[in-house]
Structures are given as C-alpha cells and as structure tokens.
C-alpha cells in the first residue's frame, strides 16, 4: 500500500511517500506566504521523483500548523498525534518526544504503541522555538548551520535572558560590543532556549528515552544544551524533520487498512 503525509509547518512543507515499510521519497519546500501552493508544489515534486501518479496513492494525510490549508488530502492529524506515531514507528523505546519547529515547541508523552498520553505546547512565544536561534544567528552574522557547531567549542557559562527572544537579541548585541567570543554567545543562546523548552517538557515529565524531532534537531549545539539541561542523552533519529510527515503517512495507512 502507498500512502503519503504532508506536514505544513511555519517555515517548511515536508512531503513523504510511504510504500509498505519503505520511504520512497522525502521532499521539502519553503512554506512562504501561500501554504496551499507550497504544499501543492512539494506534492507534485514528490510524485515526479517517484514516478507515481496521484491515483497510485491510496490515502494522503496532512499535519502541521497549516494542515487545514492542504489541498486534496483525505484527512488530517494533529502535530502531536503525528509526532507520536512517527517516533513510535522509528524508535519504540522513546517515551518523551520534543518537537521544536520554526514557531512552535511541543513536548509529547508517548506510549510504545504511539499513543499520546499527555502533551504541552508553546505557540505564544518565540523564546521556545526555532526562530529564536535564527534571529540570534542573524544578529551574530553566523550561518545557521555553523551556529550550533560553534557553541560546542565553548565551555563558558554566560547567563542570558531566557524569557524573551527580543530581549535576548539586545543582550547579544551588548555581548558582541563587550567582545565576548562568538562561541560563548552561541552556547549561552542554546542554553537559554533549552532551559525554556525543558520547563515545558517538565509539564509532561522527562521519561527515557527522550527524542528530539523537528528542524532544530540538526543543530548539535542545541542537542548538547538539551542533553546537559535534562541530564539525559537525547536521541536524534535520522531525518528528524520528517517525523511528522511520516506519522501522517502512517495515519493514512491505518485508516485505509
């Protein structure tokens, strides 16, 4: 059976096509200002990559903040539900999923069967989301990819305002003026975001194993800060940004069975 999941996030649309237990393709597109158009483009690209036609796909499920804007899907599943399903499929030992996207952060307590037992969400404030790192990397004029690696070079602890991304940005400017090494600033920023996210995770409890998914999982500085803050190793699966899309494709498969 072939199914597909479309995850429409604040920054990227991710499309995944699943045939039995094989992922046929993963495609992503910037969400931009028109999420429907981006979803359409990404889905068309996935079809052309796999050589499939739309009718070959038994069922398509959408997820993500923009899931209501997905064209031609059969149904949708919440971010929380998709994250739980996706991670249970990839790594059934995981009990706590931390999903940090561009403009949202989520913590999900999940059973081995991929059932959501509890969850917490932050969607009000950028201090617990990926755009925080982006803003600071921009202020420091460091490419986002390097920013995480840079923080691993530091072992200094500089206290930073963990409450507000806007205030943190002004603080970073002062640190730059005071000639603080960029590596130390990068570490302080990752620690600040991690502490903010950990306080959200505590609301559902930190139960091993803990996995981090979403685009922020590519940032080794953040993974390190999170592991140190929670005093537990954080699991990062392969393609952490497609876990939601995978969960949606799995939901589509369950429905069609």
């Amino acid at each position: 059976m072939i199914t597909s999941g479309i995850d429409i996030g604040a920054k990227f649309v991710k499309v995944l096509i699943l045939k039995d237990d094989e992922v046929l393709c993963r495609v992503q597109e910037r969400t931009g200002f028109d999420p429907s158009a981006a979803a359409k483009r990404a889905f068309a690209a996935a079809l052309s990559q796999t050589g499939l036609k739309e009718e070959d796909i038994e069922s398509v499920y959408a997820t993500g903040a923009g899931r209501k804007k997905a064209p031609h899907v059969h149904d949708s599943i919440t971010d929380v539900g998709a994250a739980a399903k996706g991670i249970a499929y990839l790594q059934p030992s995981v009990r706590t999923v931390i999903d940090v996207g561009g403009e949202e952060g989520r913590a999900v307590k999940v059973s081995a069967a991929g059932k959501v037992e509890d969850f917490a969400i932050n969607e009000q404030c950028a201090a617990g989301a990926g755009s925080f790192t982006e803003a600071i990397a921009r202020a420091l004029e460091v490419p986002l990819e390097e920013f995480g690696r840079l923080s691993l070079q530091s072992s200094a602890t500089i206290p930073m305002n963990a409450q507000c991304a806007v205030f943190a940005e002004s603080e970073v400017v002062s640190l730059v003026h005071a000639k603080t090494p960029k590596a130390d600033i990068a570490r302080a920023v990752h620690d600040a975001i991690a502490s903010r996210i950990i306080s959200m995770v505590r609301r559902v409890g930190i139960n091993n194993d803990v996995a981090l998914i979403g685009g922020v999982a590519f940032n080794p500085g953040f993974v390190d800060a999170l592991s140190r803050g929670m005093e537990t190793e954080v699991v990062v699966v392969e393609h952490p940004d497609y876990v939601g899309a995978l969960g949606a494709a799995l939901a589509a498969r369950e429905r069609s069975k």
Partner: protein
Amino acid sequence: MADKKKEFWRWREYNWRDESKDWKSADVITAGVDVGSVSSQAVIMLDGELFAYSNMRTGSDSPDSARKAMSWAMEDTGMTLDDVHYTVGTGYGRVNVPFADRAITEIACHARGGNTMYGPTVRTILDMGGQDCKAIHCDDRGKVSNFLMNDKCAAGTGRGMEVFADLLAVSIEDVGDLSLDVDEEPPPVSSTCVVFAKSEATSLLRNGWSTNRVLAAYCSAMASRVVSLLERIGVEKDFAITGGIAKNRGVVERLERELGLTSLKSKYDTQIAGALGAALFAKALEEKKRAKAV
C-alpha cells in the same frame, strides 16, 4: 524604497536646561540618574525645582551610560559632579551609577516623580519603559501602595515598538500619528510575541494592508496587552502614563479608549519620571543629612 542603512528605531537623544535659573545661587543641588535597559536619563534639581536633564540611549556599559547622561545634563552649565550635593541612582542599572550616594528602586522613584509631574491626585501610574511595563498605585504623597510589572516579554514595551518601527521603515517618533491616520480601525495584531507579530505584520503587508493600517493594528494590540496588565491591579483615578510610549499617541489614545478614561497630561517630559523622582529623593536625603549635622 527604504534606505537599508537607516535605523528607524533610533529615537532622538537630547538635553534641556532652564536658562533662567542660576545654579550658583541654589542652596541644595541634587541629581537623579535613571539607567534603564534601553534609555538613561539624568535630572538636576535646584532646591527641588527642575534645572536640567538629558535623555539618551543606554550603552552596553551601565557606569559609562550614567556618566555620559550626567555630563550631558550639566553641559554648558559650568557645573561639575563636585557641585552636586546628593545623587540618587535608579533604574535597572541603579547599582552601576558610580557617583551616586544611594540607589533607590525605579518603582519608588516613578511614584515620587509622577506625584510631582501630575500632581497629588494621581493614584495609578503606568510606566511604559524600554524593556518593561509597570502599573503602580500610589498615595497623595507619591508613596507606592502596590505595583505590578511585566519584564519578561517584549510585548507591550518600547523595545517591541522599536522592532516594529524598523520592520515598517517608519521613524519611531512618527509611529503614533501615522497609526491614527487610518480610515477605520483594523483588528489588532493577534500574536502576543513580538517575533511572531513581525511575521504576522509581514503577511498583512503582503495582503495589501497599508503601513499605517499595520501600525494601527500593532498599537492597538499593544494597548490591549497593557490594559490586561492594568486590569489585574485595577485602575484608580487619576491615571497617568510615563515612559517613552507615553509619547506615542497611537498607543495612548487606544489605551484610553479601551479603559474609558483619559490620562493626565504634564508639562514635564514623560521619560524623566524616574530620574525626577530620584532627584527629589536626593533632596530629601540631603536635607536630612544637613539637619543631622547641625
């Protein structure tokens, strides 16, 4: 097209002096220095009367900002730090005013300064600062009876407004007037977080909204945000607004509309409330010191 190099958030720094006064004939010369997270003010008073002040941006070094603000207030007066009998430091950086005789919290100073600026009838002072927002209740002598403060989040602060001025390429001083220049009041920006409000504003512009309309939506969001802070403590009449945002008509008028109240106006600069209160405390402390010495 907007000039990329221009920094629209940069508000004008200035100093002011009452030319009619001669400090050499004053008996008690006191100063108040308010080092905030965004701006710093120094106020010099002669026998409890305002003589000179300065208002400038706080740099990355608080002691340095305090010194600069003070020397700018004294500019062209021939006065030096040694001529000042007593100095009180206040604000976020109050312990970093190297020449201060004492530090007093900004809450106490704002209430004291507000009492002089708006008269003894003022009971609620809303201070809308650069990185925080405080609602203060005080009595007829300017003594604090209760207060509530948000210093955790940029929503509802001057810093948030600076971010918006930059985004929309509008000088921060013009934001208020432009935001009132709309045909009808738009719904407020829905995101609380300034970072998210920025993305929201960008998509509103793409949907064809005019800059003024987006400014109106943001000023109105800021007003509602502050009203919810005020409602937690309650607004007792008379009501006054201090700080930089008090100069933004777009926020003030919407706030007044939502509260169903007008705020008191003052001949004093709304940004010097804290430093003025500090200088008044300094006067009382100097007089106490002198009385003891006799």
